[in-house]
């Protein structure tokens, strides 16, 4: 199989190959340029790399709707012990945020929907419900009317009438003599601690031990025009905010400003990732350059290494942006490790040349061709496994690294004969060092006696078993989040001011008709209120109060006939009202017979527009014929107990995206580990064709043992296993198998291989070892696993020589 391929690698084709390589590079550069011109971009949304969860169409729409509506929102609090100062600051900030509108076209403004108290919506609600007042009653009013106690309602109305500070005005009384409507409207609003002053939401902060005075926070909300994860939009939004904050500060030094929203997390993450990319990438690069210089004492290998790494990076970036249309920031972070791998090919080439100074560049390439090709093949198998993970981000890493390695491989085969042909300075010191190391560890650590063999095996088994026994797993996706404490503290403070906010779990109520959903919502309400009383949840927001069922509206209308048909004369007399009012009241009541509130009229009215995201109409195009309503939940204390309330309810489903994704992550963690086993077996089968069964098993045993040791170490370090550890193990296999391959290929001529493997391991550890210092837990897990795995592989691989010696002897 290799013969015909070898044929193309003879010296006569060197120039042609170099030209092909240049053409490939130019093509890659051009298509990359085109991809970026047509809108490819760096993506930093961590959600974009999360797996897709398979759900029913209705559930998916519910999730999308909740996210769409509520993503990209920011919340600002302006705190002062002087209420007016807080209000002034908030108003100044709002006008500063809106200002960009006037400067240029409105699309350039970073934020839309800059608001505090939504007075227009409150007005609209009032308008909407007033026309439906005959269909509405509070629980207490309903009870009294059911008992026929209209006199009690009438007495209560009279008392309100006497109160000069009440809302009893002529207009209202003439249309609602018992003043039932204000109570109904109040009952729509859940209790909470915010007030409204001069159009602004104000939260009162009670004195604490740190701060003796009562303070006030004016709340401002805004929605980012573009995703907070889009770097440009992110920058634009941060700049706009900074401007607004500066304006507030220059007016009043003593205003404390707090903020919350995904924007600030995204900004911190971007900043963190950028820093890590530059610091880890730079350190890795410097380390590698130092390494090459120390080994070869020549500028030439360094130049070639840089060319190899650059062309490999070029292929990687271009392939990723052409295939995905974007480049995830995490791909770049993981991808910095590509420097460490692609350079391996360069190392193998130069170490082999050092080893045989007389051989020409071409003959060296032919010599390492098989090992390098097998290495590429096994790496691509490993990266293919990464790509199977349902994470768009991971697929990118797979494509990125595979393309990068192919680039490095092509550079080696096509360009090296021309660009790396110049003779090498004699620098055998490094070779000797490598050989001395290998001889030393083989002599010192190869067990000779049966007893020591047994002891070593037992020790290894005990280590592995203890470690694996202690190994736990944790698939919670929240571990992907690393938030600086100051951002978290501000967010918690605002959350508290805004009465706890809402959790990421929600209830989805579904039904085949609108009425069924509305009735289910009504049935759910007492359950949720009970759950609140039992402190299972802190609060909930359901459409139930806003969209009563047709049945209960009809009942409310019927009950009010007691007032408007049976006892109106008595009521008017008792309240001392003009009897001319009667005719119109009766008319209004009769005319309102069919004035039912329904989802269509409410949600399309300005009053209900804000609640639209909580309602799902059937959408036959996407295959969901059901109606659905979302109930938002806040302050959940015991999710399991709460979820158990709805276990037997076909109409109510607890949607918990975090748990779902975490479950998928766990599933793929297991799949990845299973795939690692399959990849080991597959590689073993391929290798057995070349090396025979026994040596192939040994070649595979090295990465397999390294993986077991790594898992055992993680167990002993009490690091719970995640998908990222599993993915890293795949890479350990991909890189580690190269080491054993080269040792197996080189038979007894291992000097060059030992040097190349050492350099490769050191450079890889430089790259990955540094990843272990990343603040992002996922990257950290990845780095730690590779650090351990590559170290074990590096320690184990040289022992392969013990077995090639035997097989050589057998031959």
């Amino acid at each position: 199989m290799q013969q015909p391929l070898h044929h193309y690698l003879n010296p006569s084709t060197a120039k042609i190959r170099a030209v092909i390589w240049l053409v490939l590079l130019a093509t890659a550069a051009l298509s990359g340029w085109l991809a970026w011109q047509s809108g490819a971009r760096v993506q930093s949304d961590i959600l974009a790399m999360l797996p897709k969860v398979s759900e029913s169409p209705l559930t998916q729409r519910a999730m999308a709707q909740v996210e769409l509506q509520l993503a990209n929102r920011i919340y600002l609090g302006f705190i002062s012990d002087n209420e007016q100062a807080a209000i002034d600051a908030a108003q100044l900030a709002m006008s500063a945020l809106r200002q960009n509108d006037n400067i240029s076209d409105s699309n350039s403004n970073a934020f839309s929907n800059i608001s505090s108290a939504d007075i227009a919506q409150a007005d609209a609600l009032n308008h909407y419900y007033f026309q439906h007042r005959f269909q509405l009653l509070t629980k207490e009013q309903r009870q009294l009317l059911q008992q026929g106690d209209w006199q009690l309602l009438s007495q209560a109305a009279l008392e309100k009438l006497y109160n000069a500070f009440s809302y009893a005005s002529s207009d209202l009384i003439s249309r609602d003599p018992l003043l039932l409507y204000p109570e109904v409207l109040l009952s729509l609003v859940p209790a909470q601690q915010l007030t409204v002053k001069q159009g602004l939401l104000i939260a009162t902060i009670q004195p604490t031990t740190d701060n003796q005075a009562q303070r006030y926070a004016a709340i401002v909300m805004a929605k980012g025009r573009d995703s907070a994860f889009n770097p440009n939009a992110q920058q634009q939004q941060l700049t706009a905010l900074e401007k607004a904050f500066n304006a507030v500060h220059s007016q009043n030094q003593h205003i404390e400003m707090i903020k919350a929203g995904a924007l600030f997390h995204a900004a911190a993450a971007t900043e963190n990732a950028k820093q890590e990319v530059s610091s880890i990438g730079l350190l890795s690069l410097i380390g590698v350059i130092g390494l090459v210089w120390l080994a070869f004492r020549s500028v030439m290998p360094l130049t070639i290494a840089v060319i190899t790494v650059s062309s490999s990076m070029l292929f990687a970036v271009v392939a990723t942006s052409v295939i995905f249309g974007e480049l995830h920031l995490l791909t770049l972070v993981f991808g910095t490790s590509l420097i460490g791998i692609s350079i391996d090919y360069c190392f193998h080439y130069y170490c082999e040349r050092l080893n045989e100074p007389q051989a020409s560049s071409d003959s060296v390439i032919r010599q390492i061709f098989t090992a390098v090709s097998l290495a590429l093949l096994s790496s691509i198998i490993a990266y293919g496994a990464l790509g199977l993970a349902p994470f768009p981000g991971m697929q990118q890493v797979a494509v990125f690294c595979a393309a990068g390695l192919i680039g490095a491989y092509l550079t080696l085969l096509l360009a090296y004969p021309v660009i790396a042909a110049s003779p090498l300075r004699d620098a055998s010191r490094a070779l000797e060092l490598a050989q001395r190391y290998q001889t030393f560890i083989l002599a010192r650590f190869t067990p000779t006696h049966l007893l020591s063999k047994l002891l070593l095996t037992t020790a290894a088994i005990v280590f592995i078993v203890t470690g694996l026994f202690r190994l736990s797993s944790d698939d919670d996706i929240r571990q992907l989040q690393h938030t600086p404490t100051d951002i978290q503290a501000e967010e918690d403070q605002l959350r508290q001011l805004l009465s706890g906010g809402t959790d990421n779990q929600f209830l989805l109520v579904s039904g085949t008709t609108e009425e069924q959903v509305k009735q289910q919502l009504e049935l759910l309400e007492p359950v949720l209120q009970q759950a609140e009383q039992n402190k299972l949840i802190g609060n909930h927001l359901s459409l139930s109060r806003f969209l009563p069922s047709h049945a209960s509206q009809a009942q409310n209308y019927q009950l009010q006939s007691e007032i408007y048909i049976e006892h109106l004369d008595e009521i008017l007399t008792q309240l001392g009202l003009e009897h001319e009012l009667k005719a119109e009241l009766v008319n209004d009541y009769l005319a309102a017979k069919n004035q039912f509130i329904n989802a269509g009229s409410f949600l399309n009215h300005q009053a209900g527009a804000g609640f639209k995201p909580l309602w799902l109409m059937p959408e036959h195009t996407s295959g969901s014929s059901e109606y659905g309503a979302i109930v938002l939940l806040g302050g959940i204390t015991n999710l399991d107990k709460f979820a158990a309330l709805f276990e037997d309810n076909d109409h109510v489903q607890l949607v918990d995206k975090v748990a779902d994704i975490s479950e998928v992550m766990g599933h793929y963690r297991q799949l990845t580990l299973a795939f690692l086993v399959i990849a080991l077996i597959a590689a073993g089968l391929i290798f057995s064709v070349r090396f025979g069964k026994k040596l192939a098993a040994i070649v595979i045993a090295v990465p397999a043992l390294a993986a077991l040791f790594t898992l055992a170490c993680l167990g002993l370090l009490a690091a719970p296993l995640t998908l990222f550890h599993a993915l890293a193990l795949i890479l350990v296999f991909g890189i580690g198998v190269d080491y054993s391959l080269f040792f197996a290929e080189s038979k007894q001529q291992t000097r060059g291989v030992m040097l190349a493997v050492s350099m490769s391991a050191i450079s890889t550890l430089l790259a990955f070892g540094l990843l272990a210092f990343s603040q992002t837990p996922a990257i950290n897990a990845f780095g730690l696993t590779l650090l351990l795995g590559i170290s074990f592989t590096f320690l184990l691989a040289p022992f392969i020589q013990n077995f090639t010696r035997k097989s050589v002897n057998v031959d």
Partner: protein
Amino acid sequence: MIRSLLFTILSCSLLVSGLIITTLLTPSYAAEAVSPNEVTVDYQKLFAKPATDAELLALSQSLSPSPQAKGKFTQARYLKVLKKPLISSGEFLFANNIGVIWQQNKPFSSTLILKDKKLIQIDSNGKISVNHALQAGANMMSDIMPTLLNSLLSGDINALKQHFELSLLMPSTDKQSAPSQQASAQWQLGLKPLDAMVQKAMPQLVLSGKQQIHSLVLFSGNGDRSQITFTAVDESPLSSSDIARFSPEVN
């Protein structure tokens, strides 16, 4: 990051709540608009005359400051839909460090107590209900009453400027045109709420008095009017039994 993203799901209720209270005061369901002339016919002169700082200073000096007061009130509510005005009377207590008690005794007893941002209501059957002041539809009660009483009793007219546009007729400046039939030695202070929402519900208030407040007239946007007359105002410190009245037995 996930959590924070989803945190942003703050209840929509937030946007609605708190507002409704003020909306309630808004005659947005008013059948017909009432021209302002009809309401303010008596007070046009007053509201045409913005108060100057010097005048306000003179007024605040003429009021004898006191941190507390109690007295009696008579209230007449003139509502268009009523056959005859609703007349009631009772007593009030004010202490600027505790709150306000507004107790109606006739024609039936009912009490409002405002303290610690809570509104305690005792109805004619003695039933006590406690509400968060802002939730109970009591914005006017909770915001305007204490501000008004506090400012007038303690002579701190400036505090009123934060919430109202003020106009003033002092007895010395315009004697003949004092619209009230009562003694022309009275001053009249006109207040227009600055907050648009409050203004919609209650476009104008008029306070009048001599050394002490004598009356308060509240106008609604729809032609309704409430006139409260204060008598027997006593500014000496409250007795301990008075203070105890701020804490009724809640069972």
